[in-house]
């Protein structure tokens, strides 16, 4: 221990601008745009209408099915609209627009401490579900679902993900320094919910101070250990992190629980703590706003629903960004507008002043992508197949095992957009399979 994972890359970390800055509170704006879908799965059903008075923590949307998550009001005020707005994924989605009354009243029953000692696993899951908690590392999978493994799967290890391997981002780092106690308590609750025997806190070597804090706090818990991992992207990807800290591999096509592991991001753990022990629905998070164009980069406490423009006004520009990325530069999504709101999964905004040129050339078989691929497939082969439109052959060449980390594209000297082709290939395959299923019915 610790183990390691195959492949990966080490891009310039670019974290210096924000990595030791304390978390700044951001003045809450006048209008908050709260998407009903901030998670993987089905969008929440709106339970409010324009004109309704809401308080902070009032339910705005209830989960529509098991794989869905509740959405709450981030401020007190009045609902002014329920309408589609452009969201971070590039498409419009239903949002509840709330006008802030600046009283910041909590809804009844919210923000009240309660005893967690007697809670059963089922209680914890219910409270997590009610608090609308989703994976805050960016995947945004509803947390209560991850805490509900089927009867026949035994989870023995909870891995708490503080790797934060994406360049530029330091939100998790700031959280670990500021609120390690909440992370450890939340992790203990998550471990209790799935009856995991041990908790492993994983931090990359470029955050030794965060490791030290977690290590000290973890010492107060039974069977909790903090691990310092060598810095390497994509260490924070679930499957790679599992391999790195437990030496186990998730079977191809399987889930972490098939390897007996549950992974939760540090911010998610803190949210679990506040959700379960304080009945605080998830309505705010820490995000990093940084990049070459950021005049005063930093880590911010931001309410969910805050339009980017509000955060960017606080940060200011040294020059107008050419591209704004939600998340980190390796896997983040380029944003179309600054009116898009911050969601539960927005770990940061990176303001870039230059972007890669998109011309590419033939594969020279240099093998760099093969060495970089963390799932040990052959990206160059996929790139050649997909360039020629051979989606089925690509599927037979392990295309579906790709975790879309982008390492192959990052290193390719021919600048081939390999991961873009893979994403398009997967989408085409999924669309075709859906069609076939329809036809079969």
């Amino acid at each position, binding site marked *: 221990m610790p183990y390691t994972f195959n492949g990966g890359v080490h891009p310039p970390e670019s974290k210096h601008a924000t990595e030791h800055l304390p978390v700044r509170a951001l003045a809450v704006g006048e209008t908050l745009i709260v998407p009903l879908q901030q998670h993987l799965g089905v969008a929440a059903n709106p339970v409010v209408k324009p004109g309704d008075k809401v308080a902070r923590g009032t339910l705005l949307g209830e989960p529509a099915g098991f794989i869905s998550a509740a959405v709450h009001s981030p401020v007190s005020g009045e609902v002014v609209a329920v309408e589609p707005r452009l969201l971070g994924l590039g498409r419009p989605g239903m949002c509840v627009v709330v006008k802030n009354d600046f009283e910041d009243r909590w809804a009844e029953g919210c923000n009240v401490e309660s005893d967690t000692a007697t809670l059963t696993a089922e209680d914890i899951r219910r409270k997590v579900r009610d608090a609308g908690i989703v994976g805050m590392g960016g995947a945004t999978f509803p947390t209560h679902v991850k805490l509900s493994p089927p009867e026949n799967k035994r989870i023995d290890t909870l891995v708490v993900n503080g790797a934060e391997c994406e360049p530029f981002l330091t939100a998790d780092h700031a959280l670990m320094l500021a609120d390690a106690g909440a992370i450890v308590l939340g992790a203990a609750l998550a471990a209790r919910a799935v009856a995991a025997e041990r908790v492993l806190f994983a931090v990359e070597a470029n955050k030794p101070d965060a490791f030290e804090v977690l290590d000290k706090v973890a010492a107060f818990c039974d069977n909790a250990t903090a691990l310092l991992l060598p810095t390497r992207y994509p260490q924070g990807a679930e499957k790679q992190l599992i391999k790195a800290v437990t030496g186990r591999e998730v079977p191809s096509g399987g889930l972490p629980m098939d390897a007996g592991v549950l992974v939760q991001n540090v911010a998610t753990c803190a949210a679990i703590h506040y959700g379960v022990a304080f009945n605080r629905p998830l309505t705010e998070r820490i995000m990093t706003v940084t990049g070459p164009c950021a005049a005063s980069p930093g880590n911010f406490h931001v309410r969910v629903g805050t339009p980017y423009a509000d955060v960017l006004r606080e940060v200011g520009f040294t020059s107008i960004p050419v591209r704004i990325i939600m998340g980190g530069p390796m896997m983040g999504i380029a944003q179309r507008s600054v009116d898009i709101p911050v969601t539960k999964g927005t770990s940061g905004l990176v303001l870039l002043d230059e972007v890669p040129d998109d011309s590419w050339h033939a594969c020279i078989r240099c093998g760099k992508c093969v060495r970089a691929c963390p799932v040990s497939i052959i990206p160059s082969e996929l790139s050649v197949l997909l360039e020629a439109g051979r989606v089925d052959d690509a599927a037979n060449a392990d295309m579906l095992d790709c975790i879309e980390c982008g390492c192959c594209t990052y290193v390719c000297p021919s600048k081939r957009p390999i991961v*873009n082709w893979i994403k398009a290939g997967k989408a085409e395959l999924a669309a075709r399979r859906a069609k076939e299923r329809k036809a079969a019915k």
Partner: protein
Amino acid sequence: MTAREEQFEPNRLSIATSPHIREAGDVKRIMWTVNATLVPIAALSLFLFGWYAGVVIAVSVISCLVFEAVWQRLSGKSITISDGSAVITGLLLAFVLPPNVPLYVVIVAAAVGILIAKQLFGGLGYNIWNPALVGRAFVQIAYPAAVTPSTWPIVSGDTWHRIFMDVRNAAPPNALAGSSYDAVTLATPLANDALAGFAPDAAGNVHLMYPSLNDLFLGAIPGCIGETSALLIILGGLYLICKGYINWKVPVVYLGTVFLFAFFFPSWKVPGAAAFGGLPEYVIGLDVPGRFFFPLYQVFSGGIVLGAVYMATDMVTTPITSRGQVIFALGCGVITASIRLLGHGFPEGCCYSILLMNTATPLIDRYTRPTKYGAVKK
């Protein structure tokens, strides 16, 4: 400046899928770095073999560039000769030709290498065989006398030798050194089936036929333009290994295999080779026991150091995984050694061994796929 919405009309922000950053370095940089490491070898060849070697190199490089540009022009593709790959082909092609090769042979070889072996297959990245070696193999068959001439010019072998040897040894380390290659024309080791006469011949002029290991390593011997100096080739290779452009295992396994073969089967079909252990001291040069002399001689003579460092490591035509590359190198070593030690037809096996293994590359790739993450273990 403030974050005014007007500054971000939807089409002002650049949109693309991740990753949004790229590692520095591109194909051009790789190719030109390889070229840079070939320059010292080219420079030495001018010094050793005279100005005509420079003409051969220039004609080879220019022909490769011209053929590539003309083909791309005629087939309506964009012209990519600035990527440096045609220059590599031109340099390597010249390096595997004799310093007195007629220029038309060079041009024919360049045409075959660039047009048939490279562009006909789709250009850089798509070719199956190493273009320089295809060009050389073609002219070897078409113009055997030009590619394996009866005389091999050398003008400054002795000076090159002295630069190193006189520093380390007050006296010339062996009788051969004094005899000097300057302005002497003679056969290169291996190039003329020289192995067949491995033992000293009755006339006693063995020292003219068989240079010392020192000179073999330095390159102070007659031979093809860029093949002779193992020293410069290895230095160039070390640089490329440090840069991560070539896999160190390839030259090591290739040369190691040849060494071991020659070590364990030294005397096969080589008349008089049984006497290799008893060769006159002055031929041995380096202070190595006789048992190691023959295998080292095999490794440093002929073109296999160049082949192992610069051709068996060609990215396009060799396997993509490290495991595959090791198998490739092993195959090259076995074939080279077999051709040299067992065969009669070809004195020098390097070129053909690499071309043969190029052919096997897709097969090797198929059987050396890495085990993917989470593969269900059976």
